[in-house]
């Protein structure tokens, strides 16, 4: 049972600040995802956790104790690498049993434990193959089994699905999540794929230029992002400039947007008349005939028929554009005037400049 607390972690290379005060926590059994584009510091954070990098400042507490002075080979963390890092000269069974061999376990114990974990990741029968003789998906599972067999205190996964094709990625993703939940291991997971992060995580840290932009549950990250960067990174998003911001209650505001006056939830603490934007996810917008149910009216600029749905882009007369998803049976085309209804409970007001 492991809790992790990353406190104000800093790391710089010669003239490049890789981590600029990263703080995170993971409760026992949680899977925490570090999400962000390349160069945001997510891998550096993971490598500091693993002990491959030494941070210049801050601390990492595991079960309340700092581990910065513990070398990586005594941290008892399992690491799964992006390229799997399987030892090419060892068979599958030797790869998985390597850590146990280092612990000087008996031959019988190694054999049973390797057998059990191979069954768990569905690799039975491949014991004597060399890594180069098995498929990418199988290699990935060997890497996972190799980390799990040691019953690590913490599991660290660095873009483990990046080298798999789309179909396998889905399969292995659920395998990882299942195994992690079954064994109750606390885990950190690095990815640049937002759907992976959403689907698997208990908590997501969206990272930006060496800092954590937002650390929250996947739902919150998606529906209540702290800034435009987070909203953009986690999915399709529409932004409309909000005027006459007026707090009405804690986290509730009345605003004037594209000619309409509405009341919405938003990032707490915005001041009266603050520069703000309204986030509207495409799925909270509905295409309606012009009339009283419509919040906005606009002109269709283009429409793409995708089979299961219709993707439309609509220009508002006051300026600004909205993307939305409509049912496929709607018959609209470029040039049509349409009305748009907003599910106001899923609109979200954010400051225009990141805090």
């Amino acid at each position, binding site marked *: 049972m492991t809790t992790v607390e990353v406190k104000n972690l800093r790391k710089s290379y010669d003239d490049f600040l890789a981590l600029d005060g990263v703080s995170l926590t993971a409760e026992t059994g949680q899977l925490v995802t570090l999400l962000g584009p390349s160069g945001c510091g997510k891998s550096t954070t993971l490598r500091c956790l*693993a*002990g*491959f990098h030494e941070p210049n400042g801050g601390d990492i507490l595991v079960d309340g104790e700092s581990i910065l002075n513990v*070398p*990586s*080979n*005594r*941290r*008892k*963390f*399992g*690491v799964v*690498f*992006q*390229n799997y*890092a399987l*030892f*090419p*000269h*060892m068979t599958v069974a030797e790869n998985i049993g*390597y*850590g146990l061999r*280092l*612990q000087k376990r008996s031959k019988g114990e190694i054999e049973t434990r390797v057998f059990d974990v191979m069954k768990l990741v569905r690799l039975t029968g491949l014991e004597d193959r*060399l890594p*180069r003789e098995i498929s990418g998906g199988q290699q990935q599972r060997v890497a996972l089994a*190799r*980390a799990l067999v*040691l019953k690590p205190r913490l599991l*660290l996964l660095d873009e483990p699905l990046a080298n798999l094709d789309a179909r396998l990625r889905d399969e292995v993703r659920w395998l990882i999540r299942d195994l992690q939940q079954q064994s109750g291991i606390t885990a950190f997971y690095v990815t640049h794929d937002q759907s992976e992060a959403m689907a698997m995580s208990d908590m997501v840290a969206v990272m930006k230029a060496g800092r954590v932009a937002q650390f929250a549950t996947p739902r919150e990250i998606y529906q209540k992002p702290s800034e435009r960067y987070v909203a953009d990174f986690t999915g399709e998003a529409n932004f409309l400039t909000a005027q006459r911001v007026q707090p009405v209650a804690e986290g509730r505001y009345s605003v004037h947007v594209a000619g309409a006056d509405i009341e919405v939830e938003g990032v707490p603490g915005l001041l009266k008349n603050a520069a703000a934007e309204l986030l509207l996810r495409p799925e909270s917008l509905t295409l309606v005939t012009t009339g009283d149910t419509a919040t906005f009216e606009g002109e269709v600029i283009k429409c793409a028929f995708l089979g299961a749905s219709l993707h439309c882009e609509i220009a508002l007369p006051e300026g600004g554009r909205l993307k939305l998803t409509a049912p496929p049976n709607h018959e609209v085309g470029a040039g049509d005037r349409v009305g748009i209804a907003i599910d106001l409970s899923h609109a979200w007001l954010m400051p225009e400049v990141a805090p």
Partner: protein
Amino acid sequence: MIRSKKLTWALALPALALIFVFMILPITNMVEMSFRTPGSSEPFGEDYTWMHYTRILGDGYYWGVLRRSLYTAGIVTLLCLVVSYPIAWHLSRAKGFKAVFLYACIASPLMTGVLVRNFGWMIVAALNGPLNESLIALGIIERPLRLLFTQSLVILALVHVFVPFMVLPINNALRNIPQSLTEASASMGASRYQVFRDIILPLSFPGIQPGVILVYVLAVAAYVTPALLGGQMVSYMPTLIIGELTGTFQWPFGSALAIVLSFSTVLVVVLFTRLTWKLNERARA
């Protein structure tokens, strides 16, 4: 490739001719030469005979020299490996300007003639040379040692000659080991020594094997170093062979000696390759 077959062969022709005419033919010719009878006024006679081989194989002296040559080359190769591995490791970690500087340090002996380097060792190992003087200064010895014209100096100089041939392939093999493998090993609890033993050493074997073979083959046949630094006291096969060819003009006998030496070398190399085949097979990723 959009080259026609005809053009390909036309382009290859001069090089193939060079290798064939000035290497394959002469070596074949040498095999033939080793069966010639000795000549009286000419370096070789008209008829063919086995006598040179029976003479060599029947004479304990030649067996002794052959054994010394093969054995010394083995020692040289082993020492060369011991010296080269840390250098190759260090070189494989270096980046930027440092790497360029280190490559220059390693390449400069390769680019300096064997004769020149051996001459350098003559100066170093002289009775009042820097080696003796520093050993005296350090209090390790009291009186200068006679180092010149000893077998140890020959071995030392040969190791020096062949270090680059060993360092470069091992360096390449080490550079091909992804850092994530050592990290993975460490994350599974391996100490620094265990990472080296279990991961780095086995995976660098594809560099060690060609290095060892190349150095051994070159060391067995090295002529200049024993000739210059070995003095008259100990004979090695190459000095013997050159002596037969340029001193006494016994071409057929010299050829037979060269062929016996080559054959034994090939035997040793084949044996080594077979013994280490399994190690290499696995590591080749």
